[in-house]
């Protein structure tokens, strides 16, 4: 605990990042108490009203309060991003450990397959999968988790490669431990550091990817106040009521930057 408070004081980036993300998490969690209006209620104010004391972020074309929608919108993104990252982390770590521990042809096969998958842009892969599977929140989580797994697997593999050569791994083999025991109980705890950094970077990208999918109409469906959906449905107002697009866009940016500041801070700590 003392080391955490120490690193907060020595790393302002980490502190700011944590603060930014915490604000979003808290407001999203307590949305019914924080938000001034119902997120989907139409006509709570005039249509496309500019930001004012009554409607801090203005209103959209249906007279919905954008501040309330942005606050509630955090609920989608902050559920989808951690869930999909966790899925990617578990899958990717297992694949990476298997490649590093198996070495030889197993490593080759796994890594070349991952290279092949990563040759496609993430959004294209996600698009393809969601078109086949149909769009739902659960499917968005599954798809983002699956496309992140290869990236996390590469980090896990490179960190594990130096570990599997160490003598404690040979000692475990010499007492007859099974492959899974060695990978999960012996090696995995020692690659925790780089994996935490990678997972935090992925969290930011997951926010971004889920917003992109919402924007493309493949994620959460309107009228839900998902940030990507909000940008998409108000994009025709960009010239007349730019706040309707800017507010959710800035929200996305704030969360992504928050996560990436945390990731940088963790990496600095890791390298000390």
């Amino acid at each position: 605990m003392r080391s955490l408070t120490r690193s907060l004081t020595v790393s302002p980036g980490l502190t700011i990042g944590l603060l930014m993300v915490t604000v979003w998490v808290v407001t999203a969690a307590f949305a019914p108490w924080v938000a001034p209006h119902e997120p989907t209620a139409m006509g709570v104010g005039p249509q496309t009203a500019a930001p004012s004391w009554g409607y801090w972020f203005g209103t959209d074309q249906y007279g919905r309060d954008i501040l309330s929608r942005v606050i509630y919108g955090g609920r989608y993104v902050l559920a989808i991003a951690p869930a999909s990252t966790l899925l990617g982390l578990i899958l990717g770590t297992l694949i990476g450990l298997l490649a590093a521990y198996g070495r030889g042809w197993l490593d080759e096969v796994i890594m070349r397959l991952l290279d092949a998958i990563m040759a496609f842009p993430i959004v294209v892969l996600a698009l393809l999968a969601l078109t086949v599977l149909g769009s739902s929140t659960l499917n968005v989580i599954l798809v983002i988790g699956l496309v992140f797994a290869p990236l996390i697997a590469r980090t896990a593999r490179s960190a594990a490669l130096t570990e599997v050569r160490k003598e404690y791994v040979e000692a475990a083999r010499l007492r007859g431990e099974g492959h899974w025991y060695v990978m999960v109980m012996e090696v995995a705890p020692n690659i925790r550091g780089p994996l935490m950094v990678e997972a935090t970077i992925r969290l930011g990208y997951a926010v971004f990817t889920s917003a992109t999918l919402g924007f493309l109409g493949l994620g959460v469906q309107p009228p839900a106040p998902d940030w990507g959906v909000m940008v998409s449905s108000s994009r025709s107002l960009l010239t007349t009521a730019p706040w309707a697009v800017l507010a959710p866009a800035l929200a996305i940016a704030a969360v992504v930057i928050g996560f990436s500041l945390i990731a940088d801070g963790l990496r600095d700590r890791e390298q000390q």
Partner: protein
Amino acid sequence: MTTPLLTFNALSIAFRRRGEWRTAVHDVSLSVQPGETVGLVGESGCGKSTLAMAGLGYLPDNARILAGEISLTGESLATMSPARLQQRRGDTIAAVYQNPATALNPALTIGRQISEIFEYQKGLTARAAMTAAKAMLEQVRIANPEQLLRAYPYQISGGMQQRVVIAMALAGEPDLLVLDEPTTALDASIQADVLALFDDLRRDLGVAMLLISHDLGVVRAVCDRAAVMYAGEIVETAPVGELFAQPKHPYTASLIDCIPTGHTHWSHERLASIPGYPPALGERGAGCAFAPRCPVARAACQQQPVALAWLNNRHASRCLFPEDTAAPGGNRPPATPGRPAGERVLESDDLVVGYKGVRVLDGVTLDVRAGETLALVGESGSGKSTLARALTGLTVPDAGSVRLDGTALPGAQRKRVQSTRRALQMVFQSPENTLNASHRIGPALGRAIRELGGLGYRAARALVPERLAQVALEADTANRRPAQLSGGQRQRVAIARAFAGDPKAVILDEPTSALDVSVQAAVLDLLIDLQQRRGTAYLFISHDLAVVRYIADRVAVLFLGRIMEVGPVERIFSGVRHPYTAELLAAIPDWAQDHPSTQAAPVMTGARDRPPGCPYASRCAYVMPQCANEPPPVREPAPGQQIHCHLPINELPGSLYE
């Protein structure tokens, strides 16, 4: 008296760790005169490298000089401008560090790296600088400098790299070389060669040296006088002859008695051990820092600081009762005879392991008996560790077999049964990597006892305190993580782990080579005691022949994957021997003084250009026409000793009648 080149005057240095200033060097006064070679010895953490760094003006940011002064030829470092300091590093003082591989730039040729020093420091043209670089390489006794100038660091051996680094240090014609563990990373025979080079440089160039080493043998072989450091202080300083013959500080005396002499087996003379551990940085008591571990400490020692006192004009000791110091050998406990060897436990038969088309092991046949230690010696690349891995099944041999208690074992570890694993265990070299950094000692050791002892979780955990006690560790070690233990403590845990299932044979792969001498003595003692109690067979891999002489009953000498010689330890060390064994023995620093060298200049031989005959032929001082083409016959000069050599017994090096 002339002005000393380097002077430390009552110097104290502290490091900032976790917000506190901790003293690392305390009240050190030492000077190096022109042309003089001074040794600075001590165990890890004693402050010797900090002192060397301070002398070069290279203290890290978290260090601070608390008191005292450092001067180069009378000029204080504190008042020197950065530009002036930069100039003096090079023309007055230059440094050579432990690892030559990291001192050289892998992207530049050797020629470029040396010549740029001449261009920068002396303003020579590129062509003149290259000529100067070539002359410099000749100075460090490199036979064909032309070829070396065009090479990249990775293309040359470690010994050659270290010579290049020395040449670079000499390029600015410094008066003083600071050598920080310059031979620690090198093989024994190459070490001997580099040490001989230091002697030459001293004679030919008159360059003074400050040699920092944990190895008292190296310091004894090279230096005029030496200072011994303990817990940041110089505890004793004297000319080396006097220091080793009549130490006047109990720490020096204990340290000398911890070092295997290379002349006796443990059943004739045990090594001393120093109880306890040195104080942590900045956590020493008020009195003498060594008092808590000192065999002759009295009440007065703990009460007030002890100053360095001069006993005569060359010998000083930081001890209140210097005359109480035991004479060399006086700290060694009485020896007890060992038990006789039993049945054959572990055997290898014509074992072959290939790697990328090269035979790393080329038909190795060996056996180890119950209660016996067979040492396996040879330079790096000889296949020692590969043999250990093939015996334990971590590497699957391409041909040949491994037998345990007369039963042939499957080649692969995975295919062996649990009772085999229990009976055949291994202790690894690196105290850093032998334990899992994420696991506490208790659960880790408990897991080994459970898997190898065939016990349940609770029963295994209940045995942990007892097993820790067997390797002389406190019960609360169980709650620690490896990072909280010293190297010696970690190696003890690794030994307890290998002994978890009461093994019949244990392979020890350089188990003490990364440890300080006093810790090494204690670990060797522990291994001997365990073996005497349980009758375990040891295969002890080591490059340190003095350690081998101490612990081994028999010795096998490996060269490029083939056994050159096997025999009882006393026959190998004092009877006739294989020419390669003779070369290895000549590399023991103080052994060489008593035994005239038969050494040929070692040339690195790649495993690829191995002749069909004896693999040592291309390097052998006794080479004959048939050596390269005919496999050598086996000579048996004494019972149990087999030498694979074309030389007839009476022409082999060493003495028949010793």
